[in-house]
């Protein structure tokens, strides 16, 4: 064997390879009939009952599968969708009138039986549907079909907000959605039909010509996903995508970047059961020590607003009257000094638990907050962790020999009613609550049982009492998301854009 030694032979081959690659570059000219959307992550499941995870629901919800009702994006009011009207007929029963003339993508008509099947399926233990969790509560719901277009939804316990809950139950075609296992080829009633899911690469929807409402404008939608904000932003710049979600504040600088309030509120929970944070003066000092104005536009996007409570003020039951904490380091120092004088161990090291990637610049924000807290006399140490370890600190049981801590958190009340936020976080038995106050408990219970003004006022009182007299949290910001929109696309993201990309509102210029 005597292979000839030709170093430049390889160079020739390499050069040829590069040139041929360049020649076969895809034609990036815009096809007018395709909308390309790039997201942060691939959906895990496209089953209609897995829409609790936003990575799944933002593709499916009201695009392929629809819900009986929707929660308004501006005001938290219930709007008709597949149901045209609803009323409470008894404390446990709600009657929904369904839209007529609606057909699933497989041609079968949409009827009360389909609603019954979808709701039943979502509650099947063995399927472990994601929406079963908080959204349907631990109140089993049954159905009674009155006629083809009328259905009663019956809870075991009285439930004044069944319509809010129905806004998260996506309804798939009974014939195409197996009752005993998950499907990855959803069939619904929406303006788009599922065409294919090429794993790891893309998901494709095509226009549903037989849609019951005004038809969407774009014949074909392709979803892809990339992990890095820089890459997503570059894809719109390069005309490879029309919409890029999750653009980090530092990348969101161009005229194409549209910012929207995304319903997320960030805050820091304080462990009020352990010294020194069990002293309210110390918790107030922590709030006064944060210079929120300086964080806006530096670590956080310049359009975020200061949070006053853990939900947006437009949520049903939130307080519109609370004001954000002011920045007053002198007052913070004075409060700490007063606490120290009373023997509160304010010099104890406090661990500030953070979650990696909770929002853009998550780590940097905590480093800045740590510096601000330490500047007034706290001794705070940041500890960043991945989601599972963070959840262990967030959720009960907290453990009896735990160190005193603060915990970075974020909450999104997309359902529009305070009950979805307040119980788990503030009631003494809530799985994330570190406070135990009988007055708060009774206000929450009163609100949960009631409807209308009484409900609103009970929750509102609970929020105000907590923010003023308990101070269990350091509210930070009402967050914004940024989507980069190609110049030839009309799209205005709304507060629900993290959970729903409303494709039927998008047009091409």
């Amino acid at each position: 064997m005597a292979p000839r030694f030709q170093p430049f032979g390889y160079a020739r081959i390499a050069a040829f390879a590069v040139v041929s690659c360049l020649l076969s570059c895809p034609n990036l000219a815009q096809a007018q009939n395709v909308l390309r959307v790039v997201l942060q992550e691939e959906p895990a499941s496209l089953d209609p009952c897995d829409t609790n995870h936003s990575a799944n629901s933002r593709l499916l919800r009201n695009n392929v599968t629809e819900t009986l009702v929707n929660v308004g994006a501006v005001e938290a009011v219930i709007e008709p969708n597949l149901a045209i009207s609803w009323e409470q007929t008894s404390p446990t029963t709600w009657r929904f009138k369904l839209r007529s003339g609606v057909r699933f993508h497989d041609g079968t008509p949409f009827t009360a039986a389909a609603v019954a099947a979808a709701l039943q399926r979502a509650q099947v233990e063995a399927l472990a549907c994601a929406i079963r969790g908080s959204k349907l509560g631990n109140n089993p719901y049954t159905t009674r079909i009155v006629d083809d277009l009328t259905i009663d939804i019956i809870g075991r316990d009285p439930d004044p907000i069944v319509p809010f809950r129905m806004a998260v139950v996506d309804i798939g075609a009974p014939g195409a959605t197996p009752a005993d296992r998950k499907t990855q080829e959803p069939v619904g009633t929406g303006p788009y039909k599922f065409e294919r899911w090429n794993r790891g690469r893309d998901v494709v929807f095509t226009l549903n010509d037989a849609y019951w409402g005004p038809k969407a404008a774009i014949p074909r939608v392709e979803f892809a996903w990339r992990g890095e904000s820089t890459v997503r932003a570059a894809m719109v710049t390069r005309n490879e995508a029309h919409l890029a979600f999750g653009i980090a504040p530092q990348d969101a600088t161009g005229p194409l970047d549209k910012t929207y309030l995304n319903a997320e509120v960030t805050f820091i929970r304080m462990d009020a059961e352990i010294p020194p944070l069990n002293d309210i003066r110390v918790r107030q000092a922590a709030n006064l020590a944060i210079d929120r104005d300086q964080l806006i536009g530096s670590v956080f996007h310049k359009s975020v607003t200061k949070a006053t409570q853990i939900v947006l003020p437009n949520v049903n039951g939130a307080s519109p009257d609370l004001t954000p904490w002011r920045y007053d380091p002198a007052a913070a120092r004075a409060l700490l000094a007063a606490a120290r004088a009373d023997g509160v161990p304010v010099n104890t090291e406090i661990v500030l638990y953070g979650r990696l990637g909770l929002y853009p610049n998550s780590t940097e924000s905590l480093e800045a907050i740590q510096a601000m807290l330490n500047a007034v006399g706290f001794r705070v140490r940041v500890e960043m962790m991945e989601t599972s370890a963070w959840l262990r600190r967030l959720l009960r049981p907290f453990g009896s020999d735990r160190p005193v801590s603060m915990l970075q958190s974020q909450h999104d009340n997309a359902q529009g009613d305070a009950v979805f936020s307040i119980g788990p976080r503030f009631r003494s038995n809530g799985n994330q609550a570190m406070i135990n106050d009988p007055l708060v408990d009774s206000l929450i219970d009163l609100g949960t049982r009631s409807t209308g003004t009484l409900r609103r006022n009970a929750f509102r009182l609970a929020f105000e009492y907590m923010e003023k007299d308990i101070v269990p949290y350091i509210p930070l910001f009402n967050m914004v998301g940024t989507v980069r929109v190609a110049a030839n696309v009309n799209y205005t993201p709304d507060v629900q854009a993290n959970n729903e990309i409303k494709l039927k509102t998008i047009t091409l210029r």
Partner: protein
Amino acid sequence: MSLTFFLRRLSFSFVALGGLMVLVFVLVRLTGSPVDLFLPLDANDAMRRALAVRLGLEDPIYVQFARWLADISRLDLGMSLWHSRPAADVVFQALPQTLLLGAVVLGLGSLAAIVVGALAAFRPYGAFDRIASAASLMGASIPDFWIGLMGILVFSVSLGWLPTSGYGSPSYWVLPVATLFFRPFGVLVQIVRGAMIAALNAPYIRTARAKGAANRRVIFIHALRNALLPMITVAGDLAVQLAGGVTVIETVFGWPGIGKLMIDAILQRDFAVLQAGILAVAVVIFAINIAIDFAYAAIDPRVRIDK
């Protein structure tokens, strides 16, 4: 290199594979449960317990392992909790893209490294050697995600020559391959160069060269063959790293490979996918290692691997 040797090697590997899977099975369960991650924050205790029971996580670990073994004997690698479909499907849809990418990178890297390393060794400390050594070292010392992101910003955004990311026609391969190329290339150049210098410096070759040996090419080829041994070992090490998934690059470029799948499975505690993925990758790695052992024997007849 008899059949008995091959069978013995295979059975040892099989035992090692079993050990690995036991280890993986136990260790992943020490990192917490997927229940809290999968269910919404506000799910109540009853719901959490119910899911844990349904996933079999409440049983003692040896029961869980026995069940997994029983399933595997029926070629069932379990259902993925997050993907709602068989873990084997999830894994086998991702593995080929990673292996293909790794093979292209390693192939190009090895070829380039042999050429550059051999030329550098021919005149140690000459100009070409110094430049090649410095350049290859430099390439091997840059974080790959940095090269990848800069590549996108320069070649896609600024120059517009290449697509930013994704999987498809050859143009989509250029940036990921180029990004991954540097590290194997840099490492292998060093190895080839070092081994070639040693081989060319062997007394009998030096004598031959001093006497103006008739056939320099034969000498060169001979030295190259000696250099191939350490190179194959190191290339095998690199191949193993590439087979495990080039997670960072898959994340940056949206490459539908096993690395991204595994990091997601790790972070989501998707045990079925994790176990299936590690099993699949381990089989590939063991196969690579066996192939390397045989390559030794083929290159150097003095190596008696069946001792």
